[in-house]
Each structure stands twice: as structure tokens, then as C-alpha cells.
């Protein structure tokens, strides 16, 4: 047995206990090195010997009994005061749950002001939403001291809860503990009061129940998720064979008493690959393992937006004084949905600017900020002609475009398709999409079903830009881009490509250029080019926007597993 002398022995170092002297001798002579740092300091050694002496004398029993009494008394007081004790009974270390770090910091500060120093068990030692007040009872504490400390904590606790806008049931929920009966009653009353007096959360399970004009006004120009597109997505991603093709949609609108919308957004709960936002090298390794088990390292995720929409999915009216309360109410609704759908994580994505106030609010509510791939857009192209577009590029970008795109332009023919495509054509386009999807490790997703492509090709809000390369008689489709065009922006959402001639004839660059021309032709104010392939898009004059997501997870095991995979791999194909 190997044990530490830092805790109960109150000294330092460690010790090994053997069943017989021969085993001790064997370990000492032929075992591995037994020194890992340095020799014990004489004072610690003296204390350890004295502690060992006590442990070998009958005195230890009464000392242990006194400590046991102190622990029992502290436990009793915590229960009497109704504090949410998370630690198991019997241990000298107590943990009173507070859920979010902000409440923990608040309480520790107040306790310090009252003359009591308590620790904070906080992330990464514990999960983000399982912060707690940690304190240790020793034999030397008197009952009076213990009572003073716990009664002070009990007095500070409810006031701090109120100030931070956290309720006792939320704490129990964060720790997955059942709620005491009296707290259930209190919670119902508090919730009713809060909702009646300030904000109201309207929740819809389908866009068909959301007023169309209201939704489209709110999200005009924000991305490819207007009312019609969402109705289309709901139809496509239901009743499918594959689990990953069935999405659950939720719409939340938070209003004040006058009915003004403060926060709104739509959310989908889908099966995600856990490495979706991991470095490409990590995804490549995981995909190798997925050939045996396609659902390896996948989780159900509740996410703002959907896997096929892009843009600012969360509307926050920052001019309202209630915006923070509204976001908090939205988060509460999301926590409830997460629990209902048994989703591992909540991801709020596509935040384009880092706003300190919002950032603090999210972190305080147990979210991590993670970087997403940069997003790219060409702003202000409405009044440009191709020649003017070329002129506004930097010298280097113009040179690249002339040399690598315009030189081959005569070889390409661009066709715009609208309406229902024939099945053979759709099959071919789908194959081209899978070509790209299978190589897109930077944003590793499940493949979309063909049904989706059939639906968007037929939708009046979408069009398909097909790029044919006429090297031989009977030009072949080199690229196909599915574009959404129902707002002031032109949004090429999905691309399919034949890579055969890409290197020589710059198929991808040509497709980008044709998209620019198409957006200008339609007099769109912006061309939103989305994630990945940043260098190529910047050469086309696209502005780069950093994108952020906030992640809240109940179980970080899978992510930790991904973290163990090396990012740099030798002999990558």
C-alpha cells in the first residue's frame, strides 16, 4: 500500500506499507527508483514520526472520535440550514454546491468579509456548472466555530442567490440531485413571479406556429434561415432512416411585457460528430476508426441554427435593458430542452464579434468560448461590374485572379438551374457533393441526405450553379453550387466538385469567381462565402470575420478523448 503523509499525518512525503519485511527488502533492492523529488525536510520528517506515534497509540481513537463529532455536527447544521450539500456524508471535506462560478466567487468574497476563509471548487477541477464552496473541518474546530461559519454561510447564501439570479433548484439540477420538496414549492412561486413581472418565453416546436412576418423581419439579412427555408428543413429532416438525418427543431422568442422581442433564435437537436470543430488531423484519425463503427465519438447536440444554415442565429436586442435577463431566460429554456432530449451539449454558434459583456454572461452560465473556422464574405458588391470588381482587388489578388481564373474562364460554361432537377442529374450532383464532403475534415459533419438536395433544388428560394468544363466534346460538370438567394445576400451553401481537373484548371477558384459574378448579376448587396478555404476566398477579395461559439457540455469525456489524439500526424495521406 502506498499512501501520502500530507493529509491525515499533516506532514509531508509518502510511505509504503508491506505485508512482510522480505517484500520491503525486495522492493528496496530490485524495485524501480523510489526518489522522485528530494529528501523529506527534517521538520516534516519529525512531524511524520510524531503523527505515526499517535497513530500507534490509543490516543488516535479519541482524536478520531472528536473529528467524527465535528464532521457530524457540520453535516447536521448544513442540513438544518437547507444548504445544498453535495459531498458524501462522513468526509472531513465538505462541498456545498453553487452551480455557476459567479455565485461561487460572490459567496467566497462575502464569507471572507465576514471573517471566514472558504475555498472554491471551480472549473477545471470540477465541471463548469458544478462549482461549489469547499471547506474542511478539523478536530481543532469547536462546535461554536463550526456553527458560526455555517450560520454565516446560510445567511449569505440566499442573498447571493438572489443577486446572481440563480435559484436553489437550478443548483440541484446542475449536480443532478433531487430537489427537496420545500424547494420545489419555492421554485414554482419564484418562476411564476419572474415570468409574470418581467419576461415571457414563447416556445414553438415548428416554424409553422411562428408568425412568418415577425420571423422574417427579425432575421432579415442575418443568414439562410428565413421562414420558408426553415419550413423546408423541417420537412426534409424528419421521418428518415438514419438517426443523423432526423433533427428536432425548437424556436424560442423572449419578449418583455409589452411584447417587444428581446431575444430569439432557433435550435436544432441533432447527432454530431464530436470532432466536428477539431483540427482536420484529429478528424482524419477518428474517421479511420469510424469505418468500423460509424457512430464512434458522436453525441446529441442542441445547437443554435442548424448544420446547413449559416449566419447570426441568435437575435439579441442589445438596446433593451432586459437583454441579459432575456438571455438568461433563454439559457434556462435551453437547459430544460437539453435535459428533455438527453443532449450531451449545447452549442451557441456564429457569434461574429467578441462582446465582453455577453462573453462574461455566457462564461458565468457554464459555457466555454471556442473558436470556429473563420467566415468569409464579400460586402458591398451590389453596384459593381466585373471590371470594377477586378480593379478594387489588391494588386496581388488581381494578378492571381488574372493568372489562375480569368485565363481559363473561356473553358467553362456556367448554367443556372431552378426547379425540380431530373434524377440522373441530381445523382451526379450528389456524387460531386460527397466528393467534397468526404474531404472536409476541417468541419467534419455527417453527409446530408439526397432528399435535401432534391428539396432545395426545387425551392424558389434556391438555385443551382453548375460549372461545366469543356475540355472535350460534351462538357463535364466540374462543380455544382447550391445557393440560397432569398434575402439581400447571396449565400452559396453547399458545393460539389470533381477534383480531376481542379489542380490544372482551378475549378474551385473558377466556381468562386462565377459566384461573385452571379451575386453581382442579381444585385445582391453581399456574397456570404462561409467557412474554410480562407486563402482562396481572400484572394477573391473576401473579408475575414472571426467566428465564435459557446459550448456547454454535461459530459466532457468524449472531448477529452479527442484531445488525446495528436494534431500533427506523420505520413498523412
Amino acid at each position, binding site marked *: 500500500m502506498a499512501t501520502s503523509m500530507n493529509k491525515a499525518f499533516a506532514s509531508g512525503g509518502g510511505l509504503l506499507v508491506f505485508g512482510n519485511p522480505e517484500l520491503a527488502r525486495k522492493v528496496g533492492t530490485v524495485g524501480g527508483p523510489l526518489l522522485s523529488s528530494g529528501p523529506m525536510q527534517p521538520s516534516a520528517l519529525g512531524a511524520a514520526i510524531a503523527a505515526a506515534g499517535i497513530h500507534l497509540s490509543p490516543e488516535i481513537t*479519541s482524536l478520531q*472520535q*472528536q473529528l*467524527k*463529532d*465535528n464532521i*457530524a*455536527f457540520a453535516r*447536521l*447544521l448544513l442540513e*438544518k440550514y437547507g444548504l445544498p450539500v453535495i459531498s458524501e456524508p462522513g468526509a472531513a471535506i465538505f462541498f456545498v454546491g453553487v452551480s455557476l462560478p459567479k455565485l461561487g466567487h460572490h459567496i467566497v468574497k462575502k464569507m471572507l468579509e465576514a471573517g471566514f476563509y472558504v475555498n472554491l471548487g471551480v472549473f477545471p477541477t470540477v465541471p463548469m456548472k458544478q462549482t461549489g464552496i469547499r471547506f474542511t473541518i478539523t478536530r481543532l474546530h*469547536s*462546535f*461554536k466555530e463550526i*456553527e458560526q461559519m455555517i*450560520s454565516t454561510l446560510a445567511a449569505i447564501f440566499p442573498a447571493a442567490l438572489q443577486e446572481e439570479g440563480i435559484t436553489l433548484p437550478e443548483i440541484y439540477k446542475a449536480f443532478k440531485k433531487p430537489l427537496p420538496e420545500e424547494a420545489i414549492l419555492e421554485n414554482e412561486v419564484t418562476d411564476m413571479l419572474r415570468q409574470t413581472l418581467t419576461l415571457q418565453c414563447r416556445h414553438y416546436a415548428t416554424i409553422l406556429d411562428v408568425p412568418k412576418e415577425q420571423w422574417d423581419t427579425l432575421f432579415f439579412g442575418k443568414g439562410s434561415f428565413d421562414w420558408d427555408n426553415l419550413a423546408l428543413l423541417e420537412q426534409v429532416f424528419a421521418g428518415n432512416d438514419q438517426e443523423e438525418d432526423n433533427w428536432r427543431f425548437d424556436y424560442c422568442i423572449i419578449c418583455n411585457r409589452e411584447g417587444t422581442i428581446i431575444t430569439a433564435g432557433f435550435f436544432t437537436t441533432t447527432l454530431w460528430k464530436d470532432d466536428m470543430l477539431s483540427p482536420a488531423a484529429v478528424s482524419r484519425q477518428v474517421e479511420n476508426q469510424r469505418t468500423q463503427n460509424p457512430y464512434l465519438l458522436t453525441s446529441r447536440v442542441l445547437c443554435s441554427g442548424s448544420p446547413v444554415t449559416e449566419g447570426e442565429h441568435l437575435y439579441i436586442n442589445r438596446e433593451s435593458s432586459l437583454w441579459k435577463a432575456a438571455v438568461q431566460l433563454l439559457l434556462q429554456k435551453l437547459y430544460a430542452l437539453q435535459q428533455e432530449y438527453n443532449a450531451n451539449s449545447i452549442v451557441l454558434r456564429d457569434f461574429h464579434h467578441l462582446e465582453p459583456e455577453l462573453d462574461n454572461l455566457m462564461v458565468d452560465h457554464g459555457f466555454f468560448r471556442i473558436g470556429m473556422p473563420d467566415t468569409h464574405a464579400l460586402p458591398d458588391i451590389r453596384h459593381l461590374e466585373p471590371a470594377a470588381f477586378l480593379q478594387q482587388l489588391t494588386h496581388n489578388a488581381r494578378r492571381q485572379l488574372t493568372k489562375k481564373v480569368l485565363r481559363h474562364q473561356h473553358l467553362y460554361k456556367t448554367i443556372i438551374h431552378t426547379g425540380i432537377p431530373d434524377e440522373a442529374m441530381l445523382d451526379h450532383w450528389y456524387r460531386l457533393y460527397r466528393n467534397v464532403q468526404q474531404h472536409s475534415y476541417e468541419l467534419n459533419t455527417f453527409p446530408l441526405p439526397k432528399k435535401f438536395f432534391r428539396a432545395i433544388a426545387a425551392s424558389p428560394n434556391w438555385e443551382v450553379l453548375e460549372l461545366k468544363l469543356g475540355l472535350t466534346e460534351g462538357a463535364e460538370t466540374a462543380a455544382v453550387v447550391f445557393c440560397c438567394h432569398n434575402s439581400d445576400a447571396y449565400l452559396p451553401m453547399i458545393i460539389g466538385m470533381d477534383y480531376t481537373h481542379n489542380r490544372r484548371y482551378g475549378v474551385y477558384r473558377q466556381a468562386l469567381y462565377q459566384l461573385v459574378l452571379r451575386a453581382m448579376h442579381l444585385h445582391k448587396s453581399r456574397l456570404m462565402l462561409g467557412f474554410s478555404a480562407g486563402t482562396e476566398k481572400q484572394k477573391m477579395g473576401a473579408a475575414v470575420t472571426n467566428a465564435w461559439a459557446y459550448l456547454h457540455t454535461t459530459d466532457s469525456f468524449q472531448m477529452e478523448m479527442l484531445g488525446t489524439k495528436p494534431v500533427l500526424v506523420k505520413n498523412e495521406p
Partner: protein
Amino acid sequence: MNITKGEYTQFSLTGRLQLLTLYGELVALVSSPEAEVLIFRLFDFFVALVTDHSRCSTPVAADPVTPGLVKFYSQDGTC
């Protein structure tokens, strides 16, 4: 704050003495040459603390007692 009789009995003698010091109210005292019995009201029950004179008045027991016994010990018969 309230501690029940059941909870009180979970403590050792040292713990019980601390509880009596903190929350107890002395209601009766009976002395003999060998021992002394101090009756305390502790929340909603009574405790008899017995000290042994032969061992320098060392407390030897602090167990809950019934109200009947308290009446018996108290001089005026009330508790």
C-alpha cells in the same frame, strides 16, 4: 436550529458536552458524595450529565432522559 434526540445520540461524549455547552439550559442539579447529575434542556428533550466525583468531576455520561426523570430530580417537581 434544532437537533432531535436521535441526532444527539449520534455524538460521542465529547461532542455531547459541546452541544450542551452551546445550546443546553441547566434545569436541575442533584449532587451526592459520589456523583453529580446535571439536567439540561436541549431543544425539545432533556439530557442528564453525570460527573464522577471520584475522578475529579469528570463527565462520564450525557444521555437523554425522560421528562418523568427530570421531574423526579428537580426540587420543585416541575420541568
